[in-house]
């Protein structure tokens, strides 16, 4: 009799729905779980191949490898190198792959493979400890004079390290180089010249190695990219064009001052790259990544595979319940037993629709016939239901065996139906038949089947399966909708027909 205000209820429900949606969006953004099933994501497979001649003594090879390259996310790393010991070391931001062997002679080949996902999310470059100082550069005359002249020229037209760099690149790449430029470029390539000039001017600069990613390319080499520190972070420039920033198809393999490749105990070392663009299901990546990201511990991928399979099924139940709610509250279909249709629908998911439907109708019809006999035996209810359960078991076994003998393997799927539910359904139908007649049995039976089929179709939809398992928080939304439906006080669809005679009394 107490009349509560409904506002807190609606507020809580809306919060529930909002929380569900928000969590799902976060999960999508943080973990990259795709909204749609079957979404593909490109992955670059980059392979570094190191060749060298070993001298027949202990060999140690170490290669700089990418550490969170901008625009990419490392998925897997692996080394293929028979007989070599392998380790990945990290020292002051310098990640290196190290191969070692006690004794090697003749031509040697080592592979390092990494799989990278393009990752558009802006990553904060780690602030390196300490103040970045420019490298000390000594230029001899007349280079020093030429450099000073060039720097003065560039400085006059710039306002900071970034614009200064752009100006310098522009001057060095000029179509009509003046003699200062020609002098500076005469004994060094473009990138090292820029490196020297910038550091000479007191701007910390370094050379990074970039790899142009193109599908199915082999024997590629790294290209120098210029990085300039503007006092806060390293800015990357293309030394050939002066454009700032790393293009999406360029992987910065090396971003540190350290060398790319060090080989001890060998000679003629060379490193070359080949790459391949693959597409893999986005979900597979998410699963592989699950434990690395913040949201991972909140997902179902952590469970053993067996439990995952179980949850995949269980998590579909809310959708079935939602269908039942809609059908009963908004449409007003009569069913036999409130949630019997959902359980039948779950069985249909296992058996697929038509064989399931045939098996279900078969079992119920046979069961009703046998129940007719049981009814004349004058049994107590409990033992009658128990007997019915055993009979249903026999019918199920019979259908399976006959189906198998006739070559329908689908006959066996009948075992997915919940026996006890079937027995109760038969009992209820039978009572309904005796009390209200065959008509009512047909109405309720058909109603249950219609709801079961609808629930099946919803639960069967790839989207539902995908969403329910990968975004468990969306069940909060389903819960919210069901709670709201519980407050619906309008007319049911069937009532519009039931009360149609009221038209007469207008």
């Amino acid at each position, binding site marked *: *009799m107490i009349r509560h205000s409904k506002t807190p209820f609606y507020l809580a429900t809306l919060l529930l729905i909002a929380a569900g949606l928000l969590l799902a969006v976060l999960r999508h953004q943080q973990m990259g779980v795709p909204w749609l099933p079957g979404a593909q994501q490109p992955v670059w497979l980059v392979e570094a191949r190191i060749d060298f001649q070993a001298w027949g003594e202990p060999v140690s090879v170490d290669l700089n490898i990418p550490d969170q390259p901008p625009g990419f996310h490392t998925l897997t790393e692996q080394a293929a190198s028979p007989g070599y010991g392998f380790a990945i070391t990290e020292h002051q931001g310098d990640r290196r792959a190290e191969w070692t062997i006690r004794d090697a002679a003749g031509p040697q080949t080592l592979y390092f493979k990494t799989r990278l996902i393009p990752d558009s999310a802006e990553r904060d470059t780690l602030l390196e400890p300490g103040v970045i100082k420019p490298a000390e550069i000594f230029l001899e005359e007349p280079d020093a004079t030429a450099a000073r002249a060039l720097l003065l020229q560039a400085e006059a037209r710039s306002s900071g390290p970034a614009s200064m760099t752009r100006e310098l690149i522009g001057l060095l790449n000029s179509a009509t180089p003046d003699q200062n430029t020609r002098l500076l470029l005469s004994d060094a390539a473009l990138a090292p010249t820029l490196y020297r000039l910038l550091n000479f001017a007191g701007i910390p600069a370094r050379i990074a190695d970039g790899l142009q990613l193109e599908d199915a390319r082999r024997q590629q080499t790294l290209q120098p990219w210029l990085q300039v520190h503007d006092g806060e972070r390293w800015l990357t420039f293309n030394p050939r064009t002066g454009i700032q920033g790393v293009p999406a198809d360029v992987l910065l393999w090396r971003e540190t001052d350290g060398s790319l490749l060090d080989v001890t105990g060998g000679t003629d070392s060379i490193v070359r790259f080949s790459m391949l663009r693959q597409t893999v299901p986005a979900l597979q990546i998410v699963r592989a990544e699950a434990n690395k990201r913040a949201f991972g511990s909140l997902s179902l991928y952590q469970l053993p595979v067996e439990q995952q399979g179980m949850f995949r099924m269980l998590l579909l139940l809310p959708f079935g319940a939602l269908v039942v709610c809609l059908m009963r509250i908004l449409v007003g279909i009569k069913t036999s037993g409130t949630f019997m249709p959902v359980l039948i629908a779950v069985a249909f998911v296992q058996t697929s629709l038509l064989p399931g439907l045939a098996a279900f109708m078969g079992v119920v019809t046979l069961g009703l016939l046998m129940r007719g006999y049981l009814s004349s035996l004058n049994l107590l209810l409990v033992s009658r239901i128990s007997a019915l359960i055993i009979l249903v078991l026999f019918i199920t076994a019979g259908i399976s065996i006959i189906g198998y003998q006739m070559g329908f393997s689908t006959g066996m799927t009948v075992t997915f139906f919940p026996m006890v539910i079937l027995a109760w359904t038969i009992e209820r139908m039978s009572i309904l038949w005796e009390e*209200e007649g065959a008509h009512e049995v047909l109405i309720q039976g058909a109603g249950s089947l219609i709801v079961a089929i609808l629930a099946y179709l919803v639960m069967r939809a790839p989207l539902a399966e995908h969403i329910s398992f990968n975004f468990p928080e969306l069940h909060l939304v389903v819960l919210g909708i069901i709670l709201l439906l519980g407050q619906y*006080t309008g007319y049911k669809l069937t009532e519009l027909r039931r009360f149609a*005679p009221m038209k007469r*009394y207008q």
Partner: protein
Amino acid sequence: MFDWIRPRDLKRKGMLSMNKRNVDYIARYNDRSAFPLVDNKLKTKQVVEEHEVASPLLLQVVSEQHEIGHFRERVADLDGFAIKPAKGSGGKGILVITGRKGDDFVKPSGSRVSLADIERHLSNILAGLYSLGGSPDVAVIEALVRCDPRLSRYSHEGVPDIRIVVFKGYPVMAMLRLATHASDGKANLHQGAVGVGLNLANGRALNAVQFDRPIEQHPDNGLNLADIQIDNWHYLLNMASRCYEATGLGYMGVDLVVDATRGPLLLELNARPGLAIQVANGQGLLPRLHAVEALKRPHLTPEERVHWAMTEAGADNIPQPRRSIPALEPVFQI
């Protein structure tokens, strides 16, 4: 087949929908703790008796399987009785015996049932086949109600009963339910019984329906349904209203019968009364429910509430109720 009514029209008529009934009336006005009172016919009998509401004579209660054996001896000298599951709903599991033929018992429809059938029926009741949720139940055996002939002639093979919807103690709508051949002697509207809407002001028939379709004559005996008038109407409404004090249920259906010798009797109470009464009356419940909800100061005695309800329905020259004690006067308990 494709006969529909627009929701707007239903709303204008003030038709109460199933969802609204459940959320806004049953859930709001019916305290859960009071449900067992009406869901168990034995308890109903006891509780209404204290409020001077008579019900059919209780002959026997069968509560254990082994007592079914004694049933045979007890009914030996009875001609008519009714077996009801105490926790049954919607008339399910009620077996009415009107007479005997040899060793067999005769149902109102004339068909026979053997003692073994009755014993099986009792055992089903005890096992909870007809009770809500299938919980174990007891069978109540009551004296047969012999209906007042003035009313029973309108009914085919069954006892007509009067359903009154009582909201917060105010009778808000009433109908007479007449069994038909189609309903197998049961006064159950969805099984084909005829529903006759009754004017709250005087107990006269307003309108009649079978299977939700308007009719004018009884389908079996052809009697004109518009002629029906219930005697003692004021008393019947009072009886229904008193059930509110007995149970505390804000929204309930009161089922009454008129016995030829004992007068009006309470058959059962229903905490979830159906909506068909609106079609039988050709009117929606909502305007009347709203009128009761809008009362600033509810009436305290059944007489006053019935007086108000009948006046609202347009009655005049009805007996003025006694004034109740003002509510503000403090009540001391010793």
